[in-house]
C-alpha cells in the first residue's frame, strides 16, 4: 500500500511535466490532464482510506509499541546515511512516507481542493495555461508529500517546497499588487521555516546525543525515545552509577523542549498563521488568483496546524503543556476575536474572507492545544471543515469578482434578487462558517471548545465569544451584499450578469453536500482518527508529571 503514497507524490509531478510538454497551444488537453490527475489522486486517497480501515491493516511497530505516532503503509528510503557502517545501523535522513488517520484527513482535503482549484481555473485562467497547471500540480504533489511525511526533514522539504509553486502562482497570475504580496509570502514563511528547521535539528541531535541511539529524524522513533526519556525522568528507580539522576533528565528534556518548541512554533505560527504572525496573509489571499487563494486558505494554512499536531504534540509534551496551552492556545483565542473584528470592517471581499479564515483557524489550534481527545479530534476534523468552507467561500467570491471585475463589498447591494442561486450558496457556506449545528463547522468548533474548556476554562470562554462575533460579521456581510435595493457595479457587455453556471455548480454542489454530510455524520471522520488522537492525548493524562522541574529557578537561567 505504500506504493499508493509514492503515487500520490510522484503522479502529479509526472503530470506536471506532461502538461508542460503539451504546452499552451492545447489548453483543453492541459486542463483535462490536470483534472484527471487530481481526480485520480482523489481515488488513491479513497483507496488508502478504505485500506486503513481494514482491521487487518498493521500499523507499524518499528518504533516499538510505545510510540504514539504509528503510521501505516510506510515507505522508507534512506536518503543520506550518517553511519559509516552502512545500512546496518539505521540513521540518517530518510524519505519516509506513511499515513495515519489524521494525515488521511489532510490528504483527502488536498485531493478535494486540488480538484476544485483545477475546475475553478477552467475558464478563469487563460494566460500561460500549461505553466499554471504545472505549478498547481507541483503544489499538489508537495502537499501530499508534506501530509504523509513521517520524517522531520522530509516533512520540512515538502513544507518548504510548497512555497515555490505558490510564489509563482501568486506572483504571475495575481492581482495588481501581486509582486509585493508574493514576495512577502515567500520570505516571511521561508524565514519561519528556517527557524523551524533549526528546531528540528536541535531536537534530533539532542535525542541522539542523550540516548546514544542512531541519529534519526523519524517522528515515530523520536516520539518513542522522548517518551522513554520522560519515563526515566518520572521513575523513582535508582539509576545505574554514572547515569544522570531522574531530576537531571527531566531538567535536560524540559529545557530542550522549551527551546525547540519555540523555534518550531515560529515556523508553524507564521504558516498557519496565528495572530500576530498573520500580516502576510491578507495581501497574499486577496492578490492571488482564486485557485491559489483557495489552496492557501484551504490546505496550506493546515500545514501549520497539522505541524503542531504532528510534531509538537507527540514529541514535546513538556513544552506543549507549559508553553503550548497558555501561549499558543491563548494566541489562538485572541486571534479568533481579532480576526473577527478585522473582518467586520473590511471593504474588500477577499480580505473579508481572509480575516474570517484567520478567526476560524483559531478554533483548530485551540483544539490541538487542548491536548485531550475531544480537542485533538475537534482540531483535526476542523482542519477538513475549515478547508472545505473557506475554499468554497473563496470560489464564490471569485465568481462575483469575475462577473463584475471588482471585489469591493460596497459596490454591491441587494444581490438576492439578481443572483438567487449565488445568494443561496453564499448563505449556505456562510452558515457553515459561523458554525451552525447540522453543518460541518459546528462539530469541530464544538469539540475544540469543549476540549479547551476541560483544559483551561477561561481561554475556552473567550474563544467561545467568537460565535457572537462570527454571527456579527457574517450577517453584516450578508446584509451588505444581499439586502436592500439592487446595487451593481457597471459591467462590460462582454460579461453578462449570469447566476451560478453549470461548471460552478459542479464545483460547489459537492462541497455543499460534504459540508452537510460531515455536519450530520462526522463519525465518518472521527472514527478514523480516534485511535491516533487517543494515543497522543494519553501523553497528557498525568498533568502532575508535566510540571516544570523545579519551580524556584527561572527558565532562562536554566537554559544553559
Amino acid at each position: 500500500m505504500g506504493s499508493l503514497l509514492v503515487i500520490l507524490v510522484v503522479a502529479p509531478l509526472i503530470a506536471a511535466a506532461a502538461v508542460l510538454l503539451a504546452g499552451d497551444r492545447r489548453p483543453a488537453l492541459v486542463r483535462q490532464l490536470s483534472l484527471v490527475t487530481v481526480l485520480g489522486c482523489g481515488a488513491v486517497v479513497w483507496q488508502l482510506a478504505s485500506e486503513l480501515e481494514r482491521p487487518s491493516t498493521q500499523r507499524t511497530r518499528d518504533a516499538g509499541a510505545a510510540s504514539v505516532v504509528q503510521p501505516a503503509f510506510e515507505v522508507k528510503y534512506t536518503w543520506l546515511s550518517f553511519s559509516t557502517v552502512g545500512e546496518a545501523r539505521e540513521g540518517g535522513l530518510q524519505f519516509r512516507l506513511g499515513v495515519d488517520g489524521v494525515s488521511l484527513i489532510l490528504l483527502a482535503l488536498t485531493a478535494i481542493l486540488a480538484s476544485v482549484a483545477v475546475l475553478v481555473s477552467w475558464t478563469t485562467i487563460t494566460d500561460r495555461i500549461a505553466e499554471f497547471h504545472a505549478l498547481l500540480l507541483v503544489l499538489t504533489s508537495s502537499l501530499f508529500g508534506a501530509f504523509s511525511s513521517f520524517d522531520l526533514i522530509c516533512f520540512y522539504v515538502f513544507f518548504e517546497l510548497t512555497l515555490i509553486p505558490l510564489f509563482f502562482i501568486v506572483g504571475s497570475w495575481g492581482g495588481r499588487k501581486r509582486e509585493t504580496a508574493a514576495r512577502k509570502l515567500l520570505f516571511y514563511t521561508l524565514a519561519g521555516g528556517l527557524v523551524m528547521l533549526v528546531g528540528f535539528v536541535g531536537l534530533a541531535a539532542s535525542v541522539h546525543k542523550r540516548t546514544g541511539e542512531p541519529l534519526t529524524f523519524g517522528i515515530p522513533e523520536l516520539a518513542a525515545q522522548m517518551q522513554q526519556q520522560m519515563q526515566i525522568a518520572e521513575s523513582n528507580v535508582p539509576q545505574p552509577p554514572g547515569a544522570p539522576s531522574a531530576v537531571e533528565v527531566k531538567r535536560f528534556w524540559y529545557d530542550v523542549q522549551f527551546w525547540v518548541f519555540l523555534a518550531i512554533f515560529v515556523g508553524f505560527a507564521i504558516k498557519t498563521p496565528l495572530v500576530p504572525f498573520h500580516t502576510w496573509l491578507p495581501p497574499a489571499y486577496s492578490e492571488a488568483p482564486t485557485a491559489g487563494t483557495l489552496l492557501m486558505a484551504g490546505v496550506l494554512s493546515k500545514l501549520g496546524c497539522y505541524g503542531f499536531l504532528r510534531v509538537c504534540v507527540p514529541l514535546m509534551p513538556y513544552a506543549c503543556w507549559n508553553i503550548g496551552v497558555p501561549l499558543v492556545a491563548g494566541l489562538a483565542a485572541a486571534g479568533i476575536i481579532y480576526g473577527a473584528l478585522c473582518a467586520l470592517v473590511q471593504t474588500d471581499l477577499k480580505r473579508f474572507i481572509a480575516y474570517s479564515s484567520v478567526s476560524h483557524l483559531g478554533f483548530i489550534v485551540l483544539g490541538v492545544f487542548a491536548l485531550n481527545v475531544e480537542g485533538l479530534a475537534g482540531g483535526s476534523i476542523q482542519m477538513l471543515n475549515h478547508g472545505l468552507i473557506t475554499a468554497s467561500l473563496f470560489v464564490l467570491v471569485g465568481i462575483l469578482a469575475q462577473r463584475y471585475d471588482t471585489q469591493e463589498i460596497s459596490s454591491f447591494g441587494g444581490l438576492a434578487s439578481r443572483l438567487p442561486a449565488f445568494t443561496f450558496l453564499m448563505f449556505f457556506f456562510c452558515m457553515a462558517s459561523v458554525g451552525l449545528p447540522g453543518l460541518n463547522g459546528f462539530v469541530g468548533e464544538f469539540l475544540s471548545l469543549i476540549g479547551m474548556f476541560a483544559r483551561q476554562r477561561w481561554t475556552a470562554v473567550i474563544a467561545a465569544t467568537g460565535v457572537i462575533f462570527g454571527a456579527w460579521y457574517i450577517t453584516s456581510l450578508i446584509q451588505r451584499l444581499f439586502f436592500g435595493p439592487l446595487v451593481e457595479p457597471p459591467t462590460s457587455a462582454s460579461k453578462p450578469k449570469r447566476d451560478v453556471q453549470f461548471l460552478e455548480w459542479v464545483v460547489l454542489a459537492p462541497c455543499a453536500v460534504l459540508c452537510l454530510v460531515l455536519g450530520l455524520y462526522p463519525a465518518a471522520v472521527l472514527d478514523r482518527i480516534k485511535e491516533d488522537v487517543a494515543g497522543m492525548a494519553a501523553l497528557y493524562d498525568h498533568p502532575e508529571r508535566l510540571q516544570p522541574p523545579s519551580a524556584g529557578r527561572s527558565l532562562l537561567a536554566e537554559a544553559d
Partner: protein
Amino acid sequence: MSEFLLWVIPAAPLLAAVVVTLGVPLGLRSLSPWPVILALALSTGAAYTLRATAAHETIHATAWKWIDAGGVDVSLTLRADTLTLTMLSFITLVSLLIAIYSIGYMAGSPGFARFFAALSLFVASMTLLVEANDFVVLFLAWELVGLCSYLLIGYYQDRPSAGAAAKKAFIVNRIGDFGFLVGIFWLWSLLGRVVPGVQLGLDFDTVFAHAGEIAKRYPDQLTGACLCLFLGAVGKSAQFPLHTWLPDAMEGPSPVSALIHAATMVTAGVYFVARLTPILVHTPEVQLVVAVVGAFTALLAALIALTQNDLKRVLAYSTVSQLGYMFLALGCAGANPHLASLAVAAAVFHVFTHAFFKALLFLSAGSVMHAMGDVIDMRRFGGLRRALPFTHIFFLSGAIALSGLPIFSGFWSKDAILDVVAQATKAGAYRTLFGVLQFAALATAFLTAFYTFRAYFMTFWGQERFPPEAGRRPHESPMVMAAPMAILTPLALFIGLVFGPGIAVPATPATPAVTVLKPNLLAHYLQMNTPGVEHAEHHVNYGVLLASIALSVLGVLLAWQFYYRRPETPRQLAESAEPLYQASANRFYIDEIYRATITTPLEQLASVLPRFDRHWLDKIVDSFALTPRLLGRGIRGVQDGFLQSYAFWMLAGLALLLVLVIGGVS
C-alpha cells in the same frame, strides 16, 4: 410505531422544506404551500396520536451517533414525555393554521416558495427542539430555530430595515447561544468529574440522574453553569436584557410574527427552563434570577407597550411581557422547592393558552395590515369594525383572552401563575422579594388589559379612517385567511377553561378531604411523565382570582374611558408627564444604550485594528526584512573595487587569524 411517529413530526416538515426548495428551479413555485400544509397536517396528526397513546412512558428513538469523541458522546435521539407532547400539541396545530393563512396572506409575493420552505424548516426545527433528548441536539435545533427566524424576519430582502432586524435577531440570539454553549461545556465537565472515566452522553436523563451529586460537590459551579444555560433562554425568549430583537422582528411578514410569538421560537426558552427543572431545583439562586428577570421583563415590556403606536409592536411587547410572566412562574420554585411542580404546570399552561390567543391576535393584526395596504400605525386608521367585521371579532376574542377577562383562556393561565407567586410569598427566606415580584405581576396584569384594549379601541372604534395605501374601500380577508382565524377563535377563548382550572372545594373542618370538582387537565397530563414534575394539583385560589378579575376589568374600563369616550385624555396625560411618556415611547432608550456602550465601541475598535495591522504589526515584520539590507549597506563600503583596499583587508584578516591562532596555542 411511536418511534416512527416521533420521527415523522420533525421529518415531515423538513422534507417539505427540501421539496419546496427543489421545486423552485423546476418552476413549481406556485405549488409551494401544498407540501408544507400536507407535512404540517401529518405532524399534527402524529403529535395528537402520540399525545393520546404515549403519555405513560417516555419514548426514545435514536437515529445515529452524531458526535462521538473522547468524553463526548452525542446521539441524534428524540424523546417524548408529557412536557414534549404538550408543547407539540400546540406547535404543530398553530403552525398548520398559520401556514394555511399564509396561502392567502403571501399570495403574489415574489419569495412565495422561499417563505414556505423557511416556514416548514422553522416548524421542523421547533419540533426537533422540544423532542431533543440531550443538550447538544437541543442546541442544534435551537440554532436552527435562530436561522429560520433570520430567514423569515429578513424575508423582504429589498428593505434594508428587514436586513437590519434579521441581523439583530440573529446576533442577539447568538449572545444567548454563547451562554448556552458555555453552560453545556460546564455541565459536561462537571459531569465528567462526578462520574470519571466513563464516556458520558449529555442526555437529559443522565444529567438529571447526577444533578444531585454535582450539586452536592460543586454547588457554585453548578449555579454558574445553570446561569449560563439560562442566558440562552433569555436570548431566545426575548427577556431583559436581550429582549430588544423581538419587537424589531416585526419586519417579517405577519404570519411569521404569529409563528415566532406563538408557536415557535420564543416559547423555546420557557420550554428549556421547564425542562431543566430537575437540575434547577438544586440551584435556588438561579431560580431567583429567573423569577426576577421574568418579573422585571414583564413589567418593563408592559410599560413600553402602553405607548407604542404600531399595532404589531404592541403585540410584540405583550409577548415579551407574557413570557416574563412565565419565567416568573418558573422561578417561584426558588422560594420553595415544593412549588417546582406547580410552577412548571402554571408556566406551561400559560405557554399553551398564549400560543392560541397570540397567534389569533397576530393573524388578525395581519388581516388589518392586509386591508390597510401594509400600514400598521394605529394613528393612521380607526373605526375598522364596520369595514372588517370578522377581523374585528377575531381580534376582540384574542384581546379578551390576553387581558385575562374572567372565564376566558388567559384568565385561567394567568391565575395559575399569580397563585404560584402568591404561594412563594408565603414562606421561605425570600418572602419579601417575592412580595415585590407579586406586586409587579399584579401591576402587569392591569397594564396588559389596558394596553390590549387601548390597541383594540384605537383600531376598531372611533371615527372610521383609512390610510391612502388601503385603496378606495378596504376589504375583508379572503376565506383562506379567515378560516384559520375562525378555528383559532374558540380555541383562544376557551381552551384555558377546558384544560385549565382545577376547581375544588377547599378542605374544611367538616370535610377534611379536598373535593375535586374538575381536575386541572393540563397539569394532570404534564405530571404524568415529566422529569422533575410531580403530582401537585393547582386549585383555583379565590383571593388571587378576585384580584385578577378586578385588575383586568379595571384595565379594560380605563382603556375604554381613555381611547373611546375621551380620546383627548391620553394626549393630555402624555403632555403632563412628558419624560415618562418619552421614556416609554422610546423603549426606555435600551437600544440606544446598547448602541452607545457596546456596539459603537466595538465597531470603533474594529475599525482601528486593520490600521494597527498594517501600520504596526506589518512594519515590525518589514523591519526584520530590513536587517539584510542594512547589513549589506554596512559592508558594501568594503567592496569598493580598489585592489589596494582588498589587499589591505586580506592582510588585516590574516593578521587577525594569526593573533587568534597564536593566542590559542599559547
